[in-house]
């Protein structure tokens, strides 16, 4: 039983490292998406001068269950993750945490390499490879992002969920995972792919070591990113809907970035 729990934690925490790959340096490409082309017309609004956003229904048949899990994650955040994050940030100075962040991020380079290749973004794949080589050597095990600072090589993010979207696979129903948060079928499948592409998965670690690794990764990442969840909660009238909408819009944007780039070739 203990083994199963550990394995579950392992998978869940491993998946969060993929989130880390998402979040850091998310805006490396200076392309500007055309948001004006988005469908602004509302079906039930007749006056076409008064263009309004269309809210595409997010397929969420599991909403009652998802809401319970959302509550669970909420408590987990405020009772566990946040206090741990505060203590962790207090003990370790920001520079050290940033170095750790670089280290974790560097280890997930294979995920970005494979997915850039799968999406035909060969130039980006080359950048990912160069960054990995430079940072693993000159950057001392990836602790420093020398590639960015000295060679101005910006991160090129890519993940399996994005690749699946790139090939036109649908999002599927909305899911809230305990510990992990918002997801959908396609995104979840992508996380499993990312896990398989991560070298950490193949390290000969005991289950305790793995849990430690992924926990530190998660907390470290949390300590560096702005408190998005707290903001969402504070300013929304229905945080569940706000988180769901933000997740979909964010992931759609990630996929859109991949497909837009294809047309550049």
């Amino acid at each position, binding site marked *: 039983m203990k083994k199963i729990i550990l394995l579950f934690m392992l998978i869940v925490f491993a998946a969060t490292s993929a989130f880390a790959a998402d979040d*850091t340096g998310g805006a490396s490409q200076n392309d500007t998406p055309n948001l004006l082309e988005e469908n602004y017309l*509302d079906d039930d609004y007749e006056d076409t001068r008064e263009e309004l956003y269309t809210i595409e229904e*997010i397929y969420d048949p599991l909403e009652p269950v998802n809401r319970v899990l959302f509550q669970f994650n909420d408590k987990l955040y405020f009772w566990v993750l946040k206090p741990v994050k505060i203590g962790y940030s207090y003990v370790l100075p920001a520079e050290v945490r940033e170095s750790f962040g670089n280290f974790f991020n560097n280890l997930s380079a294979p995920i970005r390499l494979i997915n850039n290749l799968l999406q035909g973004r060969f130039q980006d794949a080359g950048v990912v490879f160069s960054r990995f080589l430079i940072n693993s050597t000159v950057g001392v095990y990836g602790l420093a992002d020398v590639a960015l600072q000295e060679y101005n090589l910006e991160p090129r993010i890519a993940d399996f969920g994005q690749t699946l979207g790139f090939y036109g696979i649908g999002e599927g129903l909305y899911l809230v995972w305990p510990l992990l948060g918002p997801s959908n079928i396609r995104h979840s499948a992508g996380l499993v792919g990312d896990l398989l592409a991560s070298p950490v998965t193949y390290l000969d670690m005991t289950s305790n070591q793995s849990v430690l690794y992924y926990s530190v990764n998660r907390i470290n990442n949390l300590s560096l990113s702005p408190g998005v969840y707290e903001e969402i909660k504070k300013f929304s009238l229905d945080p569940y809907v706000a988180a769901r909408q933000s997740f979909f*819009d964010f992931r759609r944007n990630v996929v859109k970035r991949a497909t837009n780039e294809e047309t550049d070739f």
Partner: protein
Amino acid sequence: MLCLRTFTAAIAVFFLFQAPAVFADAESPTAQLKPTLQRLVDILSDRSLEGKDNKKKRRDLIMSTISERFDFREMSKRVLGSTWRDISEEERDAFTVQMTKLLENNYIGQLENYSGETVEYVGERVREGRAQVSTLIESQGNKYPVHYIMNMDDDKWMVYDINIEGVSLIRNYRAEFKSILRRENYEGLLQVLEEKNSSFEQS
């Protein structure tokens, strides 16, 4: 020190009164947005406005700055969608007041986390009286794309949506309102909105 403070205050006042003249008509949306964002950065990095005692003063300054460039009525309309059509003009005004409070708290809340971020203007699109100004906010080594969506209103480009990494402020509230309106009527929604706003006043 006092001298410096007077100087910054003088500059702030100068910009405050100069502002309308700067917005000459037929200017590009970026040219119109830039001074507003610059003034926000100035207010946020103004040392003399820091601290609890100056909180209200700072908020008022921020608010008067953004209301020149942000169209809160347009935002309220878009957030409410088709329900906007069904309510009376008085109700629309009352709703706009509440929605402005919420957006103001949200936006100022984000701004109050400001710590020396820089704004880079990376692109502009104009199409049929609407415009998109794309910026990159650099914060602690990370760059976040922020897009301002604007409407032409009497030669003035007015912001009606902010899009960060694909997440639209207005679409997000719209989704929430739609979900609430499925369970409640308009009065119920207004009540939820008012309760949310009073929660900011307590803290």
